[in-house]
């Protein structure tokens, strides 16, 4: 061997550079470079619009900043899971791709070091392309004197980035502890329990996070945030084993039982996919629970602003109808149309199977959480009944619209600026009038209730129409 091996630092630099290039190409390949390049501008516009809107309704801009930190945190949790849950999970979301982070199997690189560089790369990439636009989006409102100082924007960016870093660190720690068997999972649950109990009993938990640093800049808050982040990464470093492979999972045959229930092989397979992939049916319920929480928060906010209690039935029904999107997303995460084409099944049959699975799961989940919301907050029986009709109508509309725009790849909405804008507009057109009635015209008159009921039915029919009209388009697309 005459050639000298590169130093570890040189290798790390090369890996870092190539990972950055890979991330850009991954998004560009999936969504078209130009459209993805416009995403940061859309983020600036959305944040600027939201801050302006909330400011003009008298809402504390601090609530927007808190929401941005929550978003950065969730984003960190999600981003961390891509690199740390494994190649198969990545393949389920992105298709057949091999990322540099998995190249320790073939190159003289340590897996732990690759994962470290992966974290640094993600932090740099998202800090510039997503979190910076989020912070900059506040600037117009700050200039207009909306209650956020222009000087606070660099601090906002810094705390958004560190919140994102915290999210990734907690994912590593969580995955690491989960892989340590019952004791590790027990400890994880105990830590979560302590955090929830502390929050519930009034301990100012957020003061120890990067958001606390934003609220009260100083050495103490910076130290607390740094300590939390370091603790998360220390637990992750101590417990996370990148080479660990879960034991083979054996299960009793269940396909025919499910087939007997749903009478469609694609629907049976789809429901088995959901029940057996990470999180099981719990992830569908979790998504609906998040929407329930958001609706409750919106209702409270609207009541504070207007001084009038909104219609719980109509508002909860309309927003929980959006579970149509989250449920459909879970139904399509584990497969694509191409994987069925080796069998005597055409594209329309694949979508029919998805429709059947959706009709079994989507409205039922939405209605279950709707019942919780209605019982929790209370609403007149008439509004409760119409709200249920609106929920099913919106859910079916969202289902048909999603298929029309994105086929079996609803995840594309997350990054494709054009699709995201089209989807947002098509959702806003029916939802805004319904929410205006719910928030501004409560208690809702019998005439309006009747109109909303009819509207719900029409929306549902429109969704099914969009679904049917899309079948030909996707059949042609998948045979190109």
């Amino acid at each position: 061997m005459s050639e000298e091996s590169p130093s570890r630092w040189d290798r790390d630099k090369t890996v870092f550079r190539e990972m950055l290039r890979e991330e850009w190409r991954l998004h560009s390949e999936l969504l078209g470079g130009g459209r993805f390049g416009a995403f940061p501008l859309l983020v600036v516009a959305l944040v600027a619009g939201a801050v302006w809107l909330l400011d003009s309704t008298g809402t504390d801009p601090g609530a927007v900043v808190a929401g941005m930190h929550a978003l950065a945190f969730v984003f960190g949790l999600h981003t961390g899971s891509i690199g740390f849950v494994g190649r198969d999970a990545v393949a389920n979301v992105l298709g057949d791709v091999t990322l540099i982070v998995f190249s320790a199997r073939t190159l003289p690189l340590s897996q732990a070091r690759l994962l470290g560089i992966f974290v640094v790369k993600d932090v740099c990439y998202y800090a510039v392309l997503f979190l910076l636009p989020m912070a900059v989006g506040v600037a117009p409102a700050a200039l207009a004197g909306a209650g956020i100082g222009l000087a606070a924007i660099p601090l906002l960016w810094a705390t958004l980035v560190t919140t994102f870093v915290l999210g990734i660190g907690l994912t590593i720690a969580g995955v690491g502890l989960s892989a340590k068997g019952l004791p590790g999972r027990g400890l994880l649950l105990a830590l979560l329990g302590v955090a929830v109990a502390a929050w519930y009993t009034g301990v100012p938990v957020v003061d120890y996070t990067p958001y606390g640093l934003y609220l009260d800049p100083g050495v103490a808050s910076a130290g607390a945030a740094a300590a939390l982040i370091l603790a998360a990464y220390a637990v992750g470093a101590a417990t996370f084993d990148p080479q660990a492979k879960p034991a083979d999972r054996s299960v009793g045959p269940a396909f025919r039982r499910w087939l007997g229930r749903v009478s469609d092989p694609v629907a049976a397979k789809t429901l088995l996919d959901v029940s057996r992939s990470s999180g099981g049916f719990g992830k569908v319920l979790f998504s609906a629970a998040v929407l329930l929480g958001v609706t409750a928060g919106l209702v409270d906010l609207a009541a504070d602003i207007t001084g009038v209690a909104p219609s719980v039935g109509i508002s909860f029904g309309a927003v929980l109808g959006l579970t149509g999107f989250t449920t459909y997303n879970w139904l399509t995460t584990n497969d694509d149309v191409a994987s069925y084409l080796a069998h005597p099944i055409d594209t329309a049959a694949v979508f029919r199977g998805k429709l059947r699975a959706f009709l079994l799961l989507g409205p039922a989940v939405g209605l279950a959480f709707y019942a919780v919301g209605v019982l929790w907050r209370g609403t007149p029986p008439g509004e409760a009944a119409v709200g249920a009709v609106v929920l099913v109508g919106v859910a079916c509309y969202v289902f048909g619209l999603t298929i029309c725009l994105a086929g079996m790849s609803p995840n594309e909405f997350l990054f494709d600026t054009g699709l995201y804008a089209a989807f947002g507009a098509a959702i806003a057109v029916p939802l805004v009038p319904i929410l205006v009635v719910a928030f501004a015209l409560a208690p809702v008159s019998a005439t309006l209730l009747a109109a909303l009921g009819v509207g719900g039915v029409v929306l549902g029919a429109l969704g099914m129409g969009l679904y049917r009209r899309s079948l030909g388009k996707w059949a042609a697309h998948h045979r190109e």
Partner: protein
Amino acid sequence: MTAIRTDDLRKSYGDVDALAGLSLSIESGELYGLLGPNGAGKTTAMSVLTGQILADAGEAAVLGVDPESDPIGVRERVGILPEKESPPSFLTPREYFQFVGSVRGMDDDAVDERTETWAERLSFAEKLDTLSTDLSRGQQQKTMIAGAFLHEPAVVFIDEPLANLDPIVQERVKRFLTTYREAGNTVVVSTHNVEVAAELCSRVGIVNAGELVAEVEPAELDPDETLLDVFVENVDAGEEWKGDE
């Protein structure tokens, strides 16, 4: 009787001609090899013949059925082993066979019986109830092979069937394919492995740049000539090959 026929099939992806006028004819009872370098158009040809994608021009028929106008009709009659596909992650091999049986309208008892036969033939009985996502690549390949033959079709398209298999299982698959062909069925094997094609196939079509450039019966080759020689001669690599000698 002609099992598969194509006439001047063409398919382009942007500027790349994946198929540039592919014409071939395969008789029933043949074990036909589609041999070619990477990117020669083998997988595209199989995708067109099984109705998974549409050709831009040309005609094709599989067992008398046009894959363009009746893709489901073709796929009902044939078995397919795609090169890159693996069984659904969250079904076990047993459940995957039940899924295949269900979409093909097979009797449950026949599916169960053939599941046991294939598990024994390819030595994966102990993995029948393991989620596919937890199987090795080799076990996944065994599952996909069994899935392609489960309904015992008259024509089977298999893409790189021996990939990821250990030598013993490779040998069992080769013997099975030969027996299957001898029973009067047609098997089309897409491969870039010359040795596999020479050993296994009754006739080999050499595909290069989307065209059929030669057809060879390995058993009829002169003693001083190999399939590799014919292959190298026909894929524009002859000079480079001679230079290496």
